[in-house]
């Protein structure tokens, strides 16, 4: 598995798309930092960008990467290696290289701006951790969608719909359900619903860390009460880990009996 991870990483870090992705974060980071002149505000502004972009790129590049490797996977499958090692190695190689691109793109502007002396390190780290989690989660779903769909067009379509649903449609349903049931105690429903979507969960975690939960009004107070406790934190990070691990196990299980 490590050998496949190594070469897949070696291949992807030289891909043009990954370099463009890194440059994008690099430029966005510098622009936001120098326009706002405030690290704390820059973190809050970048949060929204990261919450939309890391899932999108994870999903799209993940599907493209799998379909591009489709024929090479056949060659690997004919080698004396286990299927599990091939898929795990390819998935990890992909999500690690995407995470590295994100980390460099976002890290360099902040470090050069003086992150070390700003007292915002832990806030910045929570942003980075969330971005990496989202990259891993959405790359895994992209691989899963591609493993299930031999038809590339269908795979692309489903993966874009999946991203759209998680990034936008889900919030709409969430919002409507809160309004519809406003006469009932909806705190628990709100907490459960936000745990069921990794993007919402990440947003809540970063906002609470940045201490801007007042922006979320009453729900913010409820979230503060739940996620602010160490138990709440453990549960929410646990949920992110579950979101990352389950699709990978699913990929391994699906690939075991798949015909290539």
């Amino acid at each position, binding site marked *: 598995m490590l050998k496949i991870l190594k*070469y897949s990483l070696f291949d992807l870090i030289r891909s043009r798309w990954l370099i463009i992705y890194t440059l994008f974060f690099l430029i966005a980071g510098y622009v936001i930092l120098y326009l706002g002149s405030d690290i704390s505000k820059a973190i809050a502004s970048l949060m929204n960008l990261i919450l939309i972009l890391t899932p999108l790129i994870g999903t799209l590049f993940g599907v493209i990467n799998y379909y591009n490797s489709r024929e*090479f996977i056949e*060659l690997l499958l004919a080698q004396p290696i286990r299927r599990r090692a091939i898929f795990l190695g390819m998935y990890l190689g992909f999500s690690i290289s995407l995470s590295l691109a994100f980390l460099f793109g976002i890290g360099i502007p902040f470090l050069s701006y003086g992150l070390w002396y700003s007292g915002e390190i832990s806030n910045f780290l929570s942003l980075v951790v969330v971005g990496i989690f989202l990259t891993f989660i959405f790359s895994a779903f992209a691989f899963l969608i591609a493993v299930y769909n031999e038809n590339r067009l269908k795979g692309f379509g489903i993966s874009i719909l999946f991203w759209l649903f998680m990034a936008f449609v889900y919030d709409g349903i969430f919002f409507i359900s809160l309004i519809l049931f406003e006469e009932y105690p909806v705190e628990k429903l709100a907490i459960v619903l936000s745990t069921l979507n990794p993007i919402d969960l990440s947003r809540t975690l970063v906002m609470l860390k940045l201490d801007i939960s007042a922006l979320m009004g009453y729900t913010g107070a409820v979230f503060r009460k739940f996620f602010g406790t160490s138990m709440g934190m453990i549960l929410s990070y646990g949920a992110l880990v579950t979101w990352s691990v389950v699709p990978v196990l699913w990929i391994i299980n699906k690939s075991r009996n798949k*015909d290539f």
Partner: protein
Amino acid sequence: MIEIIDLFKRYQRLEVLTGVDLSIEDGKITAILGPNGSGKTTLIKSILGLVKPTSGDIRYERDSVLGKWEYRRKIGYLPQIARFPENLTVRELIRFVEDLRNLQGNSEQLIPLFELENSLPKKLRFLSGGTRQKVNLLLTFMFDSPLYILDEPTSGLDPVALIRFKDLIIKLKDQQRTILFTTHIIPLVEEISDKLIFLLDGKVFFQGTCQEIISDHEELNLEKAIARILSNKHHAENIEI
């Protein structure tokens, strides 16, 4: 020796292999022929474990290979489509496959044979289709295996590479290696193969030497014999309708 026993493969509603029984002898060159969709690729992918058969058994050196992976150490496989990680160079790809197999391949001998010296430092995405096929051949033949399975090995090769490929195959046969390949090019079959397996609608329609198929159908050459088999089949189908 490879034995295939009553092999069936169904993809959802599509039956691709419908009871294949055959054996492939050691030290011989065996060609698998058949029209498009007759199950050639599915058959060789089943031997390699890429496709999981619906029922039946595949034995290599008397042991069933189903659900196993270690036996692939003894097989060199050439896939039909030569596509590799785009940003690796040819040299890095060779190292990668050697690493995976934990073996040092004899690429040094094969690189001049397929005139790949200048391509070694190039990234794979810059190579032409024919050159990628040569890299594909190199990756397959750089390890000494008792069995080679080749899926349409000559596609995209220029005449010089084709001649060298044929020489290589004959040399390997002289060294008692077993070679199994699929193709549509009938003169190639006549020229190099010892035995021929003709698949039709997921079944073995004929297996034997080229001479046998020609004399059985009272034709002058293999191409005509195969054309006759196919036209007889169409004729039979029309009568059934």
